[in-house]
């Protein structure tokens, strides 16, 4: 285990995990002195009947939400944040319960900044460390097993009028409580389960081999990888497996803890750019790019990449594989996992960039967009934490291989 000369780790979120964990909401709110919570969610979660489960869990203790906002869009927006804050104030709420995926949780974090700071303009809090004091009580209930937003200290909110994305980072953005209940992810379709699971796996893997790794984030990352390797394909094949669902939701939480402390690298760097240029869902990009991120950095991080074989493939495979072969075997195992998910979803889970289609069947990442993606990636700060440096030509090399679905020619990777 690497012991860096210096590192930092923070996770102050009380995490409640279980098949009926939501039943703890009333007690948990009481413990943080909250009586009039506002529920924030999106239409999809509401229509899936998940809010009814949350409300039923609250009503057993005669606790009622003071307000419900169920109109968070797929991409969090500053206008919506302002609207949520307005309702919160009008209904005299004193806390927030955010039920949803990354967009809902980010919107709720943004609204919590406004109501806690009694502010009207989110812009003054943009950047890292500009939220400087404790916010109002905040409970996060994730409904996907991928983002890990319930344990991260960041939020990204778009201003669509100005066409910018505002990033906020502060330890005060960490929720007070995260409730992980298997019922919340039970209705996720297999394709979404597959790519959100791969998103969580990418968080854990990058946290384990990138520059800010540390013993505390390593522990959570390894546990997350093992849980995903043991459960993801099974749950995609059998969505009603509640134990498997709970394991994946916990893995997402652990991976969130890992990457919010040790950050991410190349896979997220390029993934953010593809999302920005072509509008491809984040998890889909992570899934495709993960093997390439490992291959690109292998000459610098072979030890750590080799160690990942143990939680991924298990003790027997790890012991049978010679030490020098373990890094390549790790990549091979991840490629096999992607192929298994592709097969389990009848080909709907994409393996390469050229296989990503939208609902109308249109290819989302045309090859001629790769230069734009490479240019955008050069402005993404995730590159700071990647072990090997990247210039424009390196981005193009990785993108072309990931588009075609061929392994990286590691002889072409520039070494300093």
């Amino acid at each position, binding site marked *: 285990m690497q012991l860096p000369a*210096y590192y930092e780790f923070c996770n102050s979120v009380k995490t409640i995990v279980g098949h009926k964990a939501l039943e703890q909401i009333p007690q948990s709110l009481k413990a943080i002195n909250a009586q009039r919570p506002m529920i924030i969610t999106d239409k999809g979660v509401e229509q899936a009947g998940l809010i009814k489960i949350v409300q039923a869990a609250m009503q057993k203790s005669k606790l009622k939400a003071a307000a419900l906002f169920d109109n968070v869009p797929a991409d969090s927006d500053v206008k919506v944040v302002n609207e949520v804050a307005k309702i919160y104030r009008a209904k005299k709420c004193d806390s927030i319960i955010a039920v949803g995926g990354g967009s809902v949780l980010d919107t709720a974090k943004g609204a919590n900044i406004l109501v806690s700071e009694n502010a009207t303009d989110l812009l003054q809090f943009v950047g890292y460390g500009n939220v400087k004091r404790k916010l109002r009580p905040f409970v996060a209930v994730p409904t996907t097993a991928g983002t890990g937003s319930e344990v991260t200290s960041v939020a990204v909110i778009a201003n669509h009028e100005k066409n910018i994305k505002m990033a906020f980072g502060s330890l005060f953005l960490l929720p007070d409580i995260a409730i992980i209940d298997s019922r919340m992810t039970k209705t996720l379709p297999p394709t979404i389960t597959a790519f959100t699971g791969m998103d969580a796996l990418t968080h854990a893997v990058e946290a384990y081999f990138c520059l800010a790794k540390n013993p505390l984030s390593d522990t959570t990352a390894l546990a997350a990888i093992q849980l995903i390797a043991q459960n993801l394909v099974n749950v995609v094949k059998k969505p009603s497996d509640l134990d498997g669902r709970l394991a994946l939701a916990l893995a997402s939480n652990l991976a969130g803890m890992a990457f919010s402390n040790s950050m991410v690298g190349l896979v997220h760097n390029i993934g953010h750019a593809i999302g920005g240029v072509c509008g491809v869902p984040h998890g889909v990009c992570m899934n495709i790019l993960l093997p390439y991120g490992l291959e690109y950095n292998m000459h610098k991080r072979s030890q750590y990449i080799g160690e990942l074989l143990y939680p991924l493939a298990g003790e027997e495979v790890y012991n049978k594989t010679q030490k020098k072969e373990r890094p390549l075997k790790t990549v091979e195992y991840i490629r096999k996992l992607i192929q298994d998910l592709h097969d389990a979803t009848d080909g709907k889970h994409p393996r390469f960039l050229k296989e990503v289609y939208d609902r109308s069947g249109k290819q989302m990442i045309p090859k001629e967009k790769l230069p734009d993606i490479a240019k955008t990636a050069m402005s993404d700060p995730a590159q700071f934490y990647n072990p090997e440096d990247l210039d424009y030509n390196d981005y193009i090399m990785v993108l072309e291989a990931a588009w075609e679905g061929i392994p990286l020619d590691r002889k072409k990777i*520039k070494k300093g």
Partner: protein
Amino acid sequence: MNALQYPEIKPKKKLIKRIYIAVMLWVVGRAIQAAAKVDSEVKEEFAKLKDNFLLKMWIWPNGPAMYVGKTKDGKVKYLGWKDKGYKPTLTMTIKSVEAAMLLFTFQEGTAISTARNRLVVDGDLPDACALVRILNIVEVYLLPKIIAKLAVKRYPKWSQMNPFRKHFGRILIYVRAFTF
């Protein structure tokens, strides 16, 4: 017990280290200005930054500091170490004198310093990415290979920076940085 009997304990000022860091900041600031004239890649990176770009690099909480910005005619200029009411668009804060020593004695590169949360950036992140690329090039010009390899993630190979560009550029940058 009379608390007034006890002297106030003040932190040591670490004068020698501060002087060393101030000199290094001056050298880096002047070298950035010189590199923006000499090296086409640095020139290109600065051209993409907005017109009012102004960098403040400083040691928390009391300095030293250095300011580099673009002038009205688009030239890159080292603006000194004194705050003359500047409004930086990008602030790079090194969290302590000790963290700055690690960075400026090249025991830790910019990337590791960032990863260990000793160096924090406030401002537009694309600008920060461009500035890190500029700093990397400047370090390759200023330092001998054996030291520069510690400071940057990947020392450029011949194909990325041929010896003519490197050595000729190095001479020009040193001359421009140390002459007024």
